[in-house]
């Protein structure tokens, strides 16, 4: 089977150990612990690469048959009949993710050594980011739901730490909290969903669940549907799908390497990964690919996300936020792909997206680090950086092209297949969503590119221009720790798509991963359709729209941002209809307002206050013999409690309270006579009762 496949469990263990080492010894190391982090990620990368190599061997060896997953498991704990294991479940999907995570983490860590150099919490940063990767690695090779949840939550924790890395500023800690809470809201679904899976399948092992689901070995289809819905809620939270996407843009408060890691290969793809991992459960539970079904939950949510996030990306001034919404939109594509039955294309999109999105974020970081004085505001501090930062610009352009889905670059191969499958699998609406999304993607990326690299230099960029002038230089790009990872990612953004290039009938990726689907391919119940045959004719409408998007956006940008006197400038402030639309978008469809002002404040303030008030006045009050809780509703604060407990009872409610068991207070008046009276009174009454009962 191969040493690497059997020892794949080491991959997350190494960074986890590295995390502990950095925490304990990092500060005393010459490079503040970053060397431990990078070394651990390199080791993980080597192991992952070995595992990938051996997996390909394994697939080739089992020619014609389905390649079985390699399981290495130990019993974690056991309660009664329920055995929960810990270990590694290695198959095509896991291998892809392992390789991806390890690779991107390594590059991001190298990049970070320059980017966060001299940071007040350099060591902390590396500790968290290493643990973050460990969490994702733990999750992707989880053989059961509990280990998956473990990795899932570790990532949540690390995202909290990393987004709030500069927690001295209130806004950053708020963003960190928001990320954690939003994801946690989704996690409710995961907790309940796991409970449902246990109830349906009586096991938590992923392999067994998938097999049982694919074999139709469950009692209640309805419960399976609910399990799929519950689990999908978790994916909505984690992968920033509508309507829980609002935390992702705020998460930009963290350092840029964090954003790039978070948005490319870890954290946000965890939700997509979960759907892909438990595909039989979702596929069967949500009735996908059944004749006559044109909608399902996953496709709908994915489709809405594609459009909504792309719309938001138009009105952002912060380059990272443009990229953040772009990520949300692309995640929508992946979900939509899974929803329409294009499993391979969706997973392949995870793969290609990771490279170009990581590259884009790192480019943004590089611009801020060198060219715009640590500002991410495209309108204020950027512009005209094309010639001054040639490497960054080159990588940016390549990655943008990949993101937009221009033919022969990686994004094209994955995205086009998703769109094509939607059409082919009878999900017409999502075909349209797909090509409209592609149009919008091109448009907003053109805008961002224009604002950042073309036109006149503004603010920080202008300052940078003066510096260059002063040093008599034409250009000055970031140091090698930044540019080397950029170039590597750029190259991959160009070529990674050829692993599964439908136009050339190259289907290696599909071959290596298809056994992870867990369902048969082809026709029949519970089957996932084969990917459609590629034809340029089918791809043409999408490509035409992409071209249109580029052209329209470029023209608009030139018109709006190109000259100071353009009549289009300030249109949104003059035209009420456009203004309203703009405002609606700037306010993120008012979803944040709904969550923060209404739901969170609703719980944090009135509801919890009311609950606490109930505690202090109703329940506590009853116990203490106060039956007057509702008498005053206004200024009931602590003072009232004192009054109610001590004086109110003695004065007023003695008669009502005396008989009750809780009426301890008036009795404790401290008067000896009172005690005597109660004692003898009780004796007399008790005696009377006994007499009456006995006669």
């Amino acid at each position: 089977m191969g040493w690497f496949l059997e020892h794949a469990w080491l991959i997350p263990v190494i960074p986890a150990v590295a995390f502990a080492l950095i925490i304990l010894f990092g500060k005393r190391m010459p490079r503040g612990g970053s060397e431990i982090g990078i070394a651990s990620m390199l080791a993980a990368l080597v192991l992952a690469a070995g595992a990938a190599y051996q997996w390909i061997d394994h697939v080739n060896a089992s020619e014609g048959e389905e390649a079985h997953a390699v399981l290495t498991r130990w019993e974690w704990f056991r309660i009664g009949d329920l055995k929960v294991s810990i270990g590694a479940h290695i198959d095509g999907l896991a291998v892809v993710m392992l390789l991806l995570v390890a690779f991107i983490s390594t590059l991001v860590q190298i990049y970070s050594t320059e980017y966060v150099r001299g940071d007040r919490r350099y060591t902390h940063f590396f500790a968290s980011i290493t643990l973050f990767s460990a969490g994702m690695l733990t999750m992707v090779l989880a053989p059961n739901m509990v280990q998956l949840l473990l990795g899932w939550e570790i990532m949540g924790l690390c995202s909290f730490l990393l987004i709030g890395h500069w927690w001295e500023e209130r806004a950053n800690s708020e963003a960190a909290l928001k990320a954690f809470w939003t994801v946690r809201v989704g996690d409710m679904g995961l907790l309940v969903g796991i409970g449902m899976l246990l109830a349906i399948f009586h096991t938590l092992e992923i392999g067994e669940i998938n097999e049982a689901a694919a074999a139709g070995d469950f009692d209640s289809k309805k419960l399976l549907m609910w399990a799929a819905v519950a689990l999908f809620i978790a994916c909505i939270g984690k992968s920033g799908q509508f309507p829980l996407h609002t935390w992702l843009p705020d998460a930009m408060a963290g350092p840029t390497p964090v954003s790039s890691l978070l948005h490319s290969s870890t954290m946000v793809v965890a939700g997509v990964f979960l759907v892909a991992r438990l595909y039989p459960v979702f596929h069967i539970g949500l009735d996908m690919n059944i004749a006559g079904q044109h909608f399902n939950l996953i496709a709908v949510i994915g489709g809405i996300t594609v459009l909504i996030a792309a719309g938001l990306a138009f009105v952002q001034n912060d380059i990272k936020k443009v990229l953040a919404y772009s990520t949300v939109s692309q995640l929508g594509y992946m979900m939509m792909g899974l929803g329409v039955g294009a499993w391979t294309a969706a997973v392949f999109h995870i793969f290609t997206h990771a490279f170009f999105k990581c590259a884009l974020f790192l480019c943004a970081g590089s611009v801020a680090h060198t060219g715009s004085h640590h500002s991410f505001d495209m309108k204020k501090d950027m512009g005209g950086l094309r010639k001054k930062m040639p490497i960054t610009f080159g990588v940016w352009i390549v990655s943008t092209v990949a993101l937009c889905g221009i033919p022969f670059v990686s994004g094209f191969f994955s995205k086009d297949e998703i769109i094509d499958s939607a059409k082919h699998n009878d999900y017409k609406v999502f075909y349209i969503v797909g090509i409209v999304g592609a149009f919008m993607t091109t448009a907003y990326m053109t805008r961002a590119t224009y604002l950042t690299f073309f036109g006149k230099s503004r603010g920080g960029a202008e300052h940078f221009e003066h510096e260059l002038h002063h040093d008599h230089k034409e250009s000055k790009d970031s140091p090698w720790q930044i540019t080397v990872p950029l170039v590597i990612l750029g190259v991959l953004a160009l070529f990674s798509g050829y692993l599964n290039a439908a136009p050339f009938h190259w289907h290696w990726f599909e071959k290596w991963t298809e056994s992870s689907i867990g369902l048969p391919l082809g026709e029949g119940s519970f089957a996932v359709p084969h990917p459609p045959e590629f034809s340029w004719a089918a791809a043409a409408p999408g490509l035409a729209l992409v071209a249109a998007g580029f052209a329209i956006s470029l023209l608009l940008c030139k018109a709006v941002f190109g000259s100071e006197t353009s009549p289009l400038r300030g249109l949104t402030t003059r035209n009420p209809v456009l203004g309203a639309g703009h405002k609606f978008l700037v306010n993120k469809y008012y979803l944040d307002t709904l969550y923060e002002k209404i739901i969170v404040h609703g719980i944090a303030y009135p509801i919890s206050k009311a609950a606490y008030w109930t505690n202090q006045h109703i329940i506590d009050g009853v116990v203490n013999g106060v039956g007057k809780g509702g008498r005053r509703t206004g200024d009931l604060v602590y003072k009232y409690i004192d009054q109610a407990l001590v004086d109110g009872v003695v004065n007023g409610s003695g008669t009502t309270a005396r008989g009750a068991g809780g009426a301890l207070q008036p009795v404790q008046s401290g008067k000896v006579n009172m005690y005597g009276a109660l004692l003898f009174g009780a004796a007399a009454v008790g005696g009377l009762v006994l007499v009456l009962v006995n006669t």
Partner: protein
Amino acid sequence: MEPLQDLNWLLSLGTFLPLVGVLLMLFVPKKDVDTAKTIALGTALATLAVGVVTALKFDYGQSENLQFFASHSWIKPISATYTIGVDGISLPLYLLSMLITVLVMIYSWNHVPSPGNAKAFFMLMLVLQTGMAGTFMAQDLILFFVFFELVLLPMYFMIGVWGGENRQYASLKFFLYTMFGSALMLVGFIALFVVTKNNAADPAAANFSFQWFNENGPDVAKNTAIWIFGGLFIGFAVKVPMFPFHTWLPDAHTEAPTQGSVILAAILLKLGTYGFVRIAIPFLPQAAVKWAPAIAVLAVIGIIYGALGCLAQTDMKRLIAFSSVAHMGFVMLGISTLTDLGINAALFGMVAHGLITGMLFFLAGSVKERYHTLQISKLKGMLKSMPKLGWIFGFCAMASLGLPGLAGFWGEFPALLASWSPAEVLLGNGHEGLFRVLTIIAALGTVLAAGYLLWLFQRTAMGEPAVEAAGDHHESDIHDVNAFEWAAWVPMLIGIVVLGVVPKLLLDLSDPGVQIITKVFKGGN
């Protein structure tokens, strides 16, 4: 199923050794504080050593059996026996009580709260230790009751003498409330005894040992059993505390000295839940089935309610106190499912909550000592002014909100799993829908837990330290974790991580015993 009788003096030694220490301390002059402290700590350490020996000699292959079992006649006229023994269910709690006492003593070494009098304070802790350990090893209802009540008095004095401003009110409330519960509980015990005695073929053999009730309790007529269970329920629920009997807890915790809060949270609350698992459910299984839905509903109300209460707090310690209500709600939810999964989760949750909330109270005490206030609005930037303490606090907050890989998770998560599919007898009674709704609401509780804990962490630990913070404190007061605190905290922190990573340690211990309890709830009616 024959109890193991080897080394059966170990438990008595471990339980009563602290009293020997108390006796010794009586002869130490009040002024000689160091000698008194040394004796107390020495006794506690010796007790812990006995505990460790107990743990080493414990036969882990037969953890469902009572071990170190001893049975002697004790008070003949009322058929009370001196029957003791531990099994996999009680051993972790028995050891935890010893560990916590030692740690609390180390912490108290230079943290004796005002008005001082270290000798009395340490003596009370030793008496408390005897009560706690005794409760967990008792295998006789009267013996159990004696120890259960023995715990009350030292705690009453601890709160009443060393507590905060409102201590007298709080301590009296604590005392009366628990006494009220205990009274009903005792009535339940006696009723149970009388009923089983009358039912038995050989009434002369009746006694108060658990064994007798285990054998004869299930035969009690259902209606009678439901009433008796009601008495036990109130007694234990007050101690847990379950909504709506929880109102003593925030007051007691807020006013209690740090040490008192820690012991209260770590051990005392567990007496109630332990009572459910050990006494109420196995003795009266029929009644347990009837009561389980009600318990589950109250537990879930407690979860949400405690969380909402936390969100409304302005005082750090009171917030932590309210969070106990929520966490014990999860424990009770686990118990109410009557499944092996749920009860194991509950037992795990007890230990985990003891460690985590105990730690949080330690932290609150240390914060109070440094800032002289626990007002959340006045604490800012703890991560900056004392980074180690701040991060430990962050760690404990994460553990408390049930992060996987830390101990708290294993109390909550399996309880949720279990409540989705509760015991078959409950399903048979048509409570499936109820428990499913409860599962979802309880899952909401985990979100709220993340809400209040991280909110607390953000407010107190993040940001820039306030310049004039609490007004009357001096900069010199604010120092990072000191040696005594490290010594007291490190074992708990290690415990939280180790139990979180290797839950097997506890689950393997408790599972065989739990299987015996839940056997009757599986299948059929």
